[in-house]
């Protein structure tokens, strides 16, 4: 049966240049002397180191544990000694440094003994299965690096379709292509585990028609499975989750929403292979296939690279760089970003290292003003108006940019690709997004400060009222005294005329004027209220303290509970 395919709006056909790196089979990267493993190689929070400098570690041994919901563990990618836990440059557009665990390899590349599971995955509780995937450090290997176990939680929704994404629409990159050609059985085994976890009704494997070998291989390998391998016409950015879902099912994932909401889950093919290795073979995620390519590399190919291997080491293995290299990009030419140095480690999201020559790169002098031609709007897969957005970003009209749905931009780079004025449009959107996030953080801070100020203000007012009440009380008492004196005088005067009767003696609160009585009443009310506030604050503070202690004490169990979710 041939499935009816749909289309998304826009898209471009950049030169593929994939053949450059598919001429040779996947090779193992040689072992670097030093592996640098960032604690943060995924979307979410950083992992927490559980080794110390000087510790001996084995390949596959967990060296940093996942903490919090959106997080993934990090494992030693070869055997050796931990020589440092310190800040090192990581792959990031801004050239940031971050905490990394540095391992000096011993050359033996010795695996840790896997701890066998008592039950096959089909019989273990699904939450345990997900936890295994979490503790194996598996994140989406398509490039985004979102912890995979979260995307294997149907969260109460009936999952209709599991899509395995083998589209790999970005030019130059061929790591998924080579994986599908050479290791289809791993992908299929992983897909079975995913399907089991999600209880998905159907499994689709999507491959662009520029990868006929991979398609043929998977069709053959799926001969005895009820998976559907689908060839989709090549169109960038079809590999985008929401675009692929539209093509295969004609459903639009709502803005700000997740595919799971409409009963669909998409995973990359390489993630499936990693899950197979973790669940069926007990091997944690310690390496990935990386495409080393571009006109600037002497011998482009795909390497199976242990995480933490410096990019320089890999480029050397591929025959080194040519002299006219302009920049090294991590990722593809459309969505990748230039590295500030090549002494940066490969991480879980490094699908490609692209050495671009000067001829491949548009010089900044060629950037011209926007003439609103609208070519960008024609290719935008999200149907945005990039020409208007860049205008708003440039003018710092961020509220207008948001009104024009800036945050629906997937940063695919189609607009920049077709721009006749060579405007790096996506940079403007990233700039606007970060500015808006910064403003939101500022606003949050300001809100907190305002709340604190308001609280202080109300406390000062309350104290003033209390003081006034106290004074009023004193005054009332004094006035009462006066009244008493008068009463005594009157009584004495009366006594002069008749005999004194003590039962008739007036009290100090008797004979108050109306305003005096009101003042007293008000003061009493205030006092009661103040006491109430004070009591509730005491209770709150106590509660907060208790919570804090509980939290500190139960940090680990809490994290574990999350893992089991």
């Amino acid at each position: 049966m041939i499935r009816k395919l749909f289309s998304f709006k826009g898209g471009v056909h950049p030169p593929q240049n994939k053949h450059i790196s598919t001429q040779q089979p996947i090779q193992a990267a040689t072992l670097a002397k030093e592996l640098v493993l960032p604690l943060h190689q995924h979307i979410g929070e950083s992992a927490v180191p559980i080794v110390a400098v000087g510790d001996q570690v084995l390949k596959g041994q967990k060296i940093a544990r996942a903490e919090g919901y959106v997080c993934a563990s990090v494992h030693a990618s070869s055997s050796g000694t931990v020589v440092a836990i310190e800040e090192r440059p990581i792959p990031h557009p801004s050239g940031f440094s971050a905490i990394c665990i540095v391992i000096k390899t011993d050359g033996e590349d010795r695996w840790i003994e896997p701890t066998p599971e008592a039950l096959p995955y089909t019989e273990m509780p699904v939450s345990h299965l997900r936890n295994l995937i979490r503790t194996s450090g598996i994140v989406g290997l398509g490039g985004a690096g979102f912890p995979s176990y979260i995307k294997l939680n149907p969260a109460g929704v009936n999952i209709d379709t599991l899509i395995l994404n083998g589209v790999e629409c970005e030019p130059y990159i061929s790591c998924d292509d080579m994986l599908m050609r050479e290791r289809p059985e791993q992908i299929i085994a992983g897909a079975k585990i995913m399907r089991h976890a999600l209880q998905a009704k159907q499994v689709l494997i999507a491959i662009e028609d520029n990868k006929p070998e991979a398609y043929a291989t998977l069709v053959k390998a799926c001969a005895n499975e009820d998976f559907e391998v689908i060839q989709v016409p090549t169109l960038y950015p079809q590999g985008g989750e929401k675009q692929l879902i539209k093509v295969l099912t004609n459903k639009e994932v709502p803005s700000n929403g997740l595919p799971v909401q409409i009963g669909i889950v998409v995973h990359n093919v390489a993630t499936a292979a990693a899950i197979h290795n973790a669940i069926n073979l007990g091997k944690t995620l310690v390496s990935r296939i990386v495409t080393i390519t571009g006109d600037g590399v002497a011998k482009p190919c795909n390497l199976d690279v242990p995480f933490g291997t410096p990019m320089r080491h890999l480029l050397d293995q591929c025959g080194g760089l040519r002299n006219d290299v302009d920049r090294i990009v991590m990722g593809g030419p459309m969505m990748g970003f230039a590295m500030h140095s090549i002494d940066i480690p490969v991480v879980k999201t490094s699908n490609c290292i692209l050495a671009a020559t000067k001829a491949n790169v548009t010089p900044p002098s060629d950037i011209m003003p926007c003439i609103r031609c609208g070519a960008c709007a024609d290719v935008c897969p999200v149907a945005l108006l990039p020409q208007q957005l860049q205008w708003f970003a440039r003018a710092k009209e961020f509220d207008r940019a948001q009104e024009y749905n800036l945050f629906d931009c997937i940063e695919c780079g189609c607009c920049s690709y077709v721009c006749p004025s060579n405007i790096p449009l996506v940079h403007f959107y990233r700039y606007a997004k970060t500015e808006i996030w910064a403003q939101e953080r500022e606003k949050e801070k300001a809100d907190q400060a305002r709340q604190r100020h308001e609280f202080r203000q109300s406390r000062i007012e309350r104290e003033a009222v209390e003081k006034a009440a106290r004074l009023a009380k004193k005054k009332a008492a004094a006035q009462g005294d006066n009244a008493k004196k008068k009463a005594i005088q009157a009584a004495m005067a009366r006594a002069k005329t008749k005999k004194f009767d003590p039962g008739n003696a007036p009290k100090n609160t008797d004979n108050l004027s109306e305003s005096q009585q009101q003042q007293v009443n008000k003061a009493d009310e205030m006092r009661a209220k103040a006491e109430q506030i004070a009591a509730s604050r005491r209770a709150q503070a106590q509660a907060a303290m208790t919570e804090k202690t509980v939290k500190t004490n139960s940090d680990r169990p809490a994290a574990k509970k999350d893992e089991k979710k």
Partner: protein
Amino acid sequence: MLQVAYALIPGILIFSWLFGWGVIINILLASVTALTTEALMLRLRQRPVKIFLSDGSALVTALLLGLALPPLAPWWLILLGTAFAIIFAKHIYGGLGFNPFNPAMIGYVMLLISFPLEMTRWPAPLSLSDAHLTLSQSFAYVFSGHLPAGIRLDALTMATPLDALKTNLGLNQTIQEITTRPIFGSIAGTGWQWLNIAFLAGGLWLIHKKIISWHVPAAMLGSLALISLLFYIINPATYSSPLFHLFSGAAILGAFFIATDPVSCATTPKGRIYFGIGVGILTYVIRNWGGYPDAIAFAVLLMNMAAPTIDHFTRPQVFGHGGK
């Protein structure tokens, strides 16, 4: 932008074949003025001169203005109009990409309002006139206003078809009577129809090359055709045919080369359709009931004003926002 200039070549050739050397002189003068003024302004604004000069936008402005002005117009008229377009309609607003109005049309309208006499003195098509000026005679006339002995000004000039139509309709003649004059050809004006076919060819080539999108020309010519057809059916004696409206005056040039200027046009696909419809309808309204025989410049400028609003209300539905 240079491709827009290439697409104008057939029109320029036909135009000068019909009206003589004056067309070429117009274009030359306008181009030299535009490029000089552009370079000067870039210098003043401290922008890279070479890069911006070679984008071709000043040249296109010059070509459009050169084609819009009457051939054999005095040299200062062209200089003034072009310099005004480049300085006031373009660079004062921030240069390329920032001008809200079409610079060539601003230059044209400024001249039309300030120098109505010079602007409406159109030469007769060569085929309808006995007096032909050589290249040097044309130059001499443009720069000094002297005609060679034996040639009188009346022999050279003739009302344009749109002008003749407007004037004679004002004299209560019917279209059928008016169009028997030699200035009216089989479809529209003598010669004018071929000129417009040449512009049409250039415009279609631009669409084919994806330099411009079909939205504006189709919407503008479509709405102009429809509205003129409607009135033509009601009363063919006072309202001329849709073909006449499309193929005389600057309708085709305007639809493919002027209204499509991306900078001053609406930028959303739907918006461009509304923009084109607006230009088409305004053109018809001004041609019939306004004070000027042709109306492309006014219609385009008026719609330029509306472009930001049109853009605001024609935003496409973003993926994931309530679609399927």
